[in-house]
């Protein structure tokens, strides 16, 4: 089973869909298929019912947060300045990310094939975080899509019961996002280091004015 073949199969059967293979350079070579949100539900139904092999089992749904990452690199280019060719350094800025991603792992129990990795991406991380739910196709995605909604804040349109799964209903944050700031309930750590050290310092810096006001430590 080859992802290229599956991509050709889908493109032949779902007109107008836009697919892209995201290569995985690691030894496992588990490449994934980026599906456009508009045709995702049709692609999923085709994979379950019409494809060869039929992917009848969705084993895993998870989310990934890709915050905006801007990198600037210096590039030397040749330009003609005042009639003379000169080497000029230019700063080229590139930005990646700024979207949330949801990943589905599909297996074919009939033919013992898989996994095929599907990915869908939202338009950004703030407002346009809607994706189509694949629960109508694979029932096993129901709770896991709820978990992704809870921890990443991706809203699945068409999900039968989209509520928070792990955190309480009154909770408003999405803790697995990279920019999540947790409440400052720091407590003594004997050997703080790395992230914990930063939290230690931030916590005691915030406490400082209060202890000067008369609270003896």
């Amino acid at each position, binding site marked *: 089973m080859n992802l290229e073949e599956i991509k050709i199969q889908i493109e032949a059967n779902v007109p107008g869909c836009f697919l892209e293979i995201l290569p995985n350079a690691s030894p496992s070579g588990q490449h994934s298929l980026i599906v456009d949100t508009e045709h995702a539900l049709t692609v999923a139904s085709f994979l379950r019912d019409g494809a060869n092999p039929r992917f009848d089992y969705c084993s895993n749904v998870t989310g990934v947060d890709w915050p905006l990452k801007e990198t600037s690199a210096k590039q030397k280019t040749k330009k003609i300045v005042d009639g003379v060719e000169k080497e000029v350094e230019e700063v080229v800025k590139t930005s990646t990310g700024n979207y949330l991603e949801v990943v589905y792992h599909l297996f074919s129990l009939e033919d013992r094939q898989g996994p095929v990795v599907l990915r869908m991406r939202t338009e950004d991380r703030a407002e346009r975080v809607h994706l189509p739910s694949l629960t109508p196709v694979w029932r096993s995605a129901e709770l896991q899509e709820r978990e992704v909604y809870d921890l990443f804040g991706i809203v699945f349109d068409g999900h039968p019961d989209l509520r928070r799964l*792990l*955190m*309480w*209903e*009154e*909770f*408003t*944050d999405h*803790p697995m996002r990279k920019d*999540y700031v*947790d*409440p400052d*309930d720091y*407590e*003594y750590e004997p*050997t*703080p280091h790395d*992230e*914990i*050290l930063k*939290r*230690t*310092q931030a916590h*005691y810096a915030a406490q400082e004015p209060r202890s000067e006001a008369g609270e003896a*430590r």
Partner: protein
Amino acid sequence: MDEQLKSELRRQGVVATSLQELYNWGRKSSIWPLNFGLACCAIEMIATTMARYDLARFGAEVFRPSPRQADLMIVAGTVTKKMAPQVVRLYNQMAEPKYVISMGACAISGGPFKQGYNVLKGIDRYIPVDVFIPGCPPRPEALLDAFLMLQRKIDEQQLTGPERPRHLQAEQPSEFIVPQYSEHDLIPTRNDTIWHAPLVNISNAGANESGRD
């Protein structure tokens, strides 16, 4: 009564006792724990009640499924922030005198999940704890040891005087604040009347790379 005289009388077949001793002996010999577990520590707690470790030897085998009939709450496992209000409410519903054993690293301090977004940093932030058992999870022997420690503690309790336990002092609370869910965290994050932050000198924490002054 003089201890020496008492043991002398006992040798002759005369048992002399006081109301306090009898009362404490009765209570310590029939501690009924509340039947609930939160995580993997509960498996060790169950093992403790089974034939190999046999908690029944100490009169504590009757696990009650209702807080109204329980004397002891064994907080066995990770207390998540979502679960904390229910744990405190169960404690409030237990009849006095009531005791708490905080079992395992998670129930004491949050354990390996201490810096997580969803784990309470120790159940002692909300309810008074009598015995802490370290371990991840503690062995059944450790839980038995905690039971014996609790029994010693009950045995030493005075019925009268200023040292008498909480349930004999009318002005002392028997119920504690149940935290409420809010947008970012539980409110309040701790009960300041029973929990105090560790008293450590932190002024040098992370002062430089080596960790020294």
